[in-house]
């Protein structure tokens, strides 16, 4: 029972990180039907920036803030410089450009920051919390991870739902033609979408790196899990990506905990879940496509 509680809680924590990565992918997918393969590498790069800032200033929170800001700037800059020229070209062009972004950033990180594993500090204690005498399997920092992702995704969801800028982004995503004819500067909206995606990715990078170490391809696995979570959720739905992240986090945590030699099976379990979801609901759990076809 205690084991189950521990696996559940740690599954939720990792699930929130997958959710953040998934949401960053969904933000870009919704606007341009493009999967950004460079998302993980962008997060890795901004986390390296954070570690350098923390090392120089001694302040975790300065590094944290700089990472998020760098994520937003990097996202916007990538969109403006290398993605925008691929618009109105065959879709494969943009895909290849994002794969190029992935290799470029990982190479640059190796040159600038070195290839060795670096430990990334946590904002709070990583000692396991206890309820009474029972170890919960999560730390104060894990609680911070879950709360941080919830706050940021909640704020984003509220902004999308209730603000004029959010309405502009949704209109541009659902119907770029009508949006442009109504006066919405869709190109600018897409840049903002990339900035927000970069910010979310940076958040995921800073939150996950204390448990994974940081090295040039350290975010690759997280990216794959985030992508899986996004597909489970339907790629189109912000709520879906959070639910998908949580489901995947829990499933992987139980698999890693209960299965014999579970840890090595985790990627296979993720693949299995992906296959089952795609067979049962090809559009993902929260996809709107089925509704739209009626």
């Amino acid at each position, binding site marked *: 029972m205690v084991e189950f509680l521990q696996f559940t809680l740690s599954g939720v924590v990792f699930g929130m990180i997958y959710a953040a990565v998934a949401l960053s992918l969904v933000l870009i997918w919704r606007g341009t039907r493009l999967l950004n393969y460079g998302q993980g590498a962008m997060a890795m790069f901004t986390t390296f920036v954070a570690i350098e800032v923390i090392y120089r200033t001694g302040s975790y929170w300065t590094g944290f803030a700089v990472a998020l800001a760098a994520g937003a700037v990097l996202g916007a800059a990538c969109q403006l410089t290398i993605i925008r020229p691929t618009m109105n070209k065959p879709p494969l062009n943009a895909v290849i450009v994002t794969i190029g972004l992935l290799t470029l950033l990982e190479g640059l990180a190796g040159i600038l920051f070195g290839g060795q594993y670096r430990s990334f500090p946590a904002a709070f204690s990583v000692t396991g919390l206890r309820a009474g005498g029972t170890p919960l399997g999560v730390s104060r920092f894990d609680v911070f991870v879950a709360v941080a992702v919830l706050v940021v995704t909640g704020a984003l969801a509220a902004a999308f739902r209730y603000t*004029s800028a959010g*309405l*502009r982004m*949704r*209109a541009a995503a*659902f*119907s770029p*033609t*009508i*949006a*442009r*004819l*109504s*006066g*919405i*500067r*869709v190109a600018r909206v897409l840049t903002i979408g990339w900035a927000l995606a970069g910010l979310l990715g940076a958040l995921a990078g800073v939150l996950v790196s204390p448990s994974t170490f940081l090295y040039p391809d350290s975010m690759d696995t997280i990216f794959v899990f985030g992508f899986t979570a996004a597909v489970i959720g339907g790629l189109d739905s912000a709520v879906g990506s959070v639910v998908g992240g949580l489901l995947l986090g829990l499933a992987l945590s139980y698999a890693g905990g209960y299965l014999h030699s579970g840890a090595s099976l985790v990627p296979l379990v993720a693949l299995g879940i992906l296959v089952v979801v795609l067979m049962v609901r090809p559009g993902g759990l929260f996809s*709107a496509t089925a*509704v*739209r076809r009626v």
Partner: protein
Amino acid sequence: MSSETVSATPALAVEELVAGYGGVTALNGVSISAGTAAITAVLGANGAGKTTLLRAVSGMIRPRRGRILLGGGDLAGRSPEQMVRAGIAHVPEGQGVIPELTVEENLRVGMMSWPSAFRGGGRPRAERAAALDEAYQRFPPLAVRRRKLASSLSGGERQMLVIARALLARPRVLLLDEPSLGLAPRIMAQVMDLVVQLSREHGITIVLVEQNARGALAIADHGVVLNLGRVVAAADAPTLAADVALRHHYLGF
């Protein structure tokens, strides 16, 4: 309105417009002028270039040559975002609501071309709310469904929503592409009545593209007939409707 006054005070004048897609030239030197607060019907068979003409005027495609004159300035080559700010609203074919948004959100999208309140000269929140109220008063069925998704509306209600959204941009010129397409005859008549109202009572210049030439000429002041990307006839509506040869050749009635 007689054709003389129409040509004397054009709100929108298109001169020698050439436009197309890739290697295909869909408009080959088209000139039309739409009189202020008048209804100009653009008629012709499929592939005549009617939709391309509207798309070029609203900036959805870039004309290769020619001028688009509105209020003295040449707008050819501007983007749709700039065209709507200059006063040209385009309702594309196919009841273009955004189905994933609510009725009210669709209407708010119509005000996105308004100057932002942040940049000074912007309109206050109250004015936006008043504009929404006005839209609901004109279209009561939309008020009832304001919180419902646009995908839940009937065909007639969707057309209402699309026109209401276009009007919220406060256009001087409204481009309507087949607004009666796919509607029941009774609803079609309501939409046509609405178009007349917009020009007569609100002084909006209307360019109406219609497959249903008889219905369009019944409400239009002026008509232009396109064939294979060229103007083959332009006259006041009764003259076009009375020209038997033209009707048989190009208009199918």
